[in-house]
């Protein structure tokens, strides 16, 4: 084989210009080299997601202040070769070669190599060095290499690679000052030339370029590294168990059980805390709203506050200030300012605080799940999980790698869909995205809790079985849908697995906390923008048109009058007045757009056993499924607060009767409602992310239609079957 010598040419750069601008530094390397840990160490909490036009992959960017220059560090996705296959790899390649829209090649590259696996990492190193960009090698995991008694001759390695090599440990922080010093020097001085030529096979090679590069990597690794025979023994011993066809699956099941046990056992206290805090915030807001302010002053103050809130939302959602967006902000503020005080209070307490609180309550569960996923990924176990799940997943048309997005989707489908970017094949990625929302996310839990309490409050075993059954139904629906897609619309087999099984490592708590913080910020940002918007729209639909007193039904008017009259002579008038108010609110909801829509679709949902009041819940929860609980609380006349008290809600729902005197929430209707919410899409933000990741609304609409169809048919079948069995 003829190897071609490639010599990098020098490039003279104006020092003053380089020093004046913010330099761009790309952090590159194989997956599992501790790149993200190093990025977190270098940039701390200053990292943000960098959005580039035309790509769907989020790149993390963080600013690093060096003594003489400021640099933006971009954490590029790990790759095995510049022959990029997955979207993440393609973006990494585009960023390195200056093909990202509006971006030139980076001013410098930090090439992260794993000191415990140099032979493997040098393949990518050879490709990156061939790009002739100023490069410094960060030889990471030197602490792990030292404890494994791996000896690396740094000087020899520098000579072989033709660039500076800095031993670092992202875990302990060792060597970071030296890395910053080298980076600073590289950015302010005329760009360093790679003095030593190295062999490559990119031009004129008649043989296999991979083989040639690996041969070079092996030669360099052998010349610079001494590795004892004991290296890898521990990983080998653990893997005999964890990758075993039977024991591996058992270990996987036990681990997943442990993960979910920890989520539910640890999240309870913080969830109650968030719930209580938002409840108190609502009460406080109600008490702070004055009732005797002159209208002009009131309108002006509310308009200013409203403009401030909209500005914050724009900032959170990164919406640019254009004439259109500003006009919308002014229009919204003017509308809010002209609301009557009662409506304003309702908007603030029920729409904004209630809406955001209803979402943020799931934050603890999401944080715990991502913390555990991060630890498992860092330890090297996730690759084993994909390995043991490969056969089952491929049988239904999913790749083994789909396992990680599926696990994430149990917290929330959105990060799950985003995690599907690691899947190389477009078909496999699309199937994964389309079936992920079937998996039980945190937002479904309040619905499960309500229905199981409603049906099986006297039997914890039955309630637990229903809960587990709902989870299993979601998993079964995802897997069987993938199989159906494989046989019909997206024909073909999933791409077979080839996956690195990295050495087991002690996970970094610091790194896990950083990832959780980032995820939490994304979630809160979403709650403050998309969810807030949805909450306000739903509030408006459930509030308007306002019902005049004269429109109250005769029966309801009589009951309200009776309650108010009784309150005048009662020792507990507040309770009776509250009952009357809830009755009026219930009638008001029936009169609203949402209520009218509920009646309109009554014939459609009758086969599922739903009455118009449940339909209102189905409609209002179209954008966010958890909203159904608070809607049912309102529609059945117990008010928003009732939704927080599960006993009150369940008791009230249990008392509801149909016109023929039978209970509304019998076993058949309850199970039908449960099945519907396990399978239905009912999440607008997920739809938006599906559109973004697939590049068109076509797949998002398809997902909505087929999931709703499956949910409808399954719920109707459940109702019809159970009601006949009961008879």
């Amino acid at each position, binding site marked *: 084989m003829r190897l071609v010598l490639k010599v990098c040419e020098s490039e003279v750069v104006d020092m003053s210009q380089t020093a004046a601008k913010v330099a761009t530094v790309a952090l590159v390397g194989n997956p599992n080299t501790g790149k993200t840990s190093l990025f977190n160490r270098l940039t701390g909490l200053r990292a943000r997601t960098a959005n580039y036009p035309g790509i769907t992959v989020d790149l993390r960017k963080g600013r690093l202040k060096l003594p003489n220059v400021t640099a933006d560090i971009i954490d590029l996705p790990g790759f*095995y*070769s510049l*022959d990029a*296959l997955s979207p993440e790899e393609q973006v990494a390649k585009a960023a390195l070669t200056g093909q990202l829209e509006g971006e030139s090649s980076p001013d410098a590259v930090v090439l992260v190599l794993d000191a415990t*696996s140099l*032979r*493997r990492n040098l*393949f990518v190193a050879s490709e990156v060095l061939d790009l002739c960009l100023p490069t410094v090698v960060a030889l990471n995991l030197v602490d792990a290499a030292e404890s494994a008694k791996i000896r690396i001759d740094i000087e020899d390695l520098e000579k072989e690679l033709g660039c500076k090599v800095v031993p670092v440990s992202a875990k302990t922080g060792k060597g970071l000052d030296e890395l910053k010093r080298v980076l600073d020097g590289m950015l302010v001085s005329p760009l360093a030339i790679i003095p030593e030529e190295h062999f490559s096979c990119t031009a004129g090679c008649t043989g*296999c370029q*991979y*083989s040639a590069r*690996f*041969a070079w*990597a*092996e030669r360099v*690794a052998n010349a610079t590294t001494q*590795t004892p*025979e004991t290296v*890898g*023994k521990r*990983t*080998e011993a653990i*893997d*005999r168990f964890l*990758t075993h*066809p039977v024991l591996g699956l058992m270990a996987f099941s036990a681990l997943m059980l442990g993960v979910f046990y920890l989520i539910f056992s640890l999240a309870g206290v913080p969830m109650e805390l968030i719930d209580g805090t938002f409840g108190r915030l609502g009460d406080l807001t109600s008490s702070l709203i004055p009732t005797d302010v002159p209208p002009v002053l009131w309108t002006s103050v509310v308009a200013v506050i409203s403009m401030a809130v909209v500005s914050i939302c724009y900032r959170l959602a990164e919406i640019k200030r254009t004439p259109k967006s500003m006009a919308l902000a002014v229009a919204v503020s003017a509308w809010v300012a002209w609301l009557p005080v009662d409506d304003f209070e309702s908007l603030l307490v029920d729409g904004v605080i209630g809406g955001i609180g209803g979402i943020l309550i799931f934050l603890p569960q999401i944080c715990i799940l991502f913390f555990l996923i991060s630890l498992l990924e860092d330890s090297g176990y996730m*690759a084993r999980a*994909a*390995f043991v799940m*490969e*056969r089952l997943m*491929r049988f239904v048309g999913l790749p*083994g790698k789909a396992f990680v997005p599926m696990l994430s989707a149990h917290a929330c489908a959105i990060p799950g869909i985003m995690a599907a970017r690691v899947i*190389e*094949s477009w078909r496999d990625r699309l199937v994964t995205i389309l079936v992920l929302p079937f998996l039980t996310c945190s937002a479904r839990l309040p619905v499960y809790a309500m229905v199981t309490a409603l049906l099986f409050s006297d039997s914890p075993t039955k309630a637990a079985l229903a809960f587990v059954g709902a989870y299993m139904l979601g998993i079964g629906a995802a897997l069987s849908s993938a199989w159906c897609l494989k046989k019909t619309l997206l024909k073909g*087999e999933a*791409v*077979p*697995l*080839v*996956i*690195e*099984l*990295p*050495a087991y490592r002690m996970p970094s708590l610091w790194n896990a906390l950083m990832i959780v913080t980032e995820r939490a910020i994304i979630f809160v940002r979403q709650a403050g923008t998309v969810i807030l918007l949805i909450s306000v729209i739903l509030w408006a639909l459930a509030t308007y048109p306002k019902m005049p007193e004269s429109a109250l039904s005769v029966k309801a008017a009589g009951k309200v009058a009776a309650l108010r009259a009784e309150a005048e002579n009662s020792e507990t008038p507040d309770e009776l007045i509250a009952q009357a108010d809830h009755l009026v609110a219930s009638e008001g909801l029936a009169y609203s757009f949402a209520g009218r829509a509920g009646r309109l679709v009554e014939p459609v949902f009758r086969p599922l056993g739903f009455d118009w009041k449940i339909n209102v819940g189905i409609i209002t929860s179209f954008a966010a499924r958890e909203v159904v609980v608070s809607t049912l609380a309102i529609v059945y006349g117990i008010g928003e607060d009732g939704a927080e008290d599960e006993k009150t809600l369940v008791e009230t729902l249990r008392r509801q009767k149909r016109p023929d005197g039978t209970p509304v929430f019998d076993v058949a209707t309850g199970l039908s409602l449960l099945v519907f919410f396990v399978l239905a899409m009912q999440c607008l933000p997920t739809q938006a992310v599906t559109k973004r990741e697939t590049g068109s609304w076509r797949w998002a609409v398809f997902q909505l239609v087929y999931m709703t169809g499956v949910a409808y048919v399954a719920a109707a079948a459940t109702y019809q079957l159970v009601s006949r069995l009961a008879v």
Partner: protein
Amino acid sequence: MQTPTVTPLSDVFGPGVFHCHDVAECGEASVRLKRFGICAGREIEVIQAGNPMVIRVCGVRVGVSRELSEMIVVEEPACPLHAAGSESMRVGGC
């Protein structure tokens, strides 16, 4: 000198060190294998046979599906493989 016989990696039933004879050209699939160092002329150590199987290339353990291991043609060692621990095979094969 005995000519080694070639066989698909998927047909290997026990641990051992093999010489990669060829990787069938099959678009992206062969690129995916080659990126891991599974290409002609390189050594592949089978650690755990089966579907998927665990192999070691370039000092790294890699999990490979049967569909892909069928594409990898390896040279069988001249003497029979023993099913003992893979470690003894790593340095000298048979």
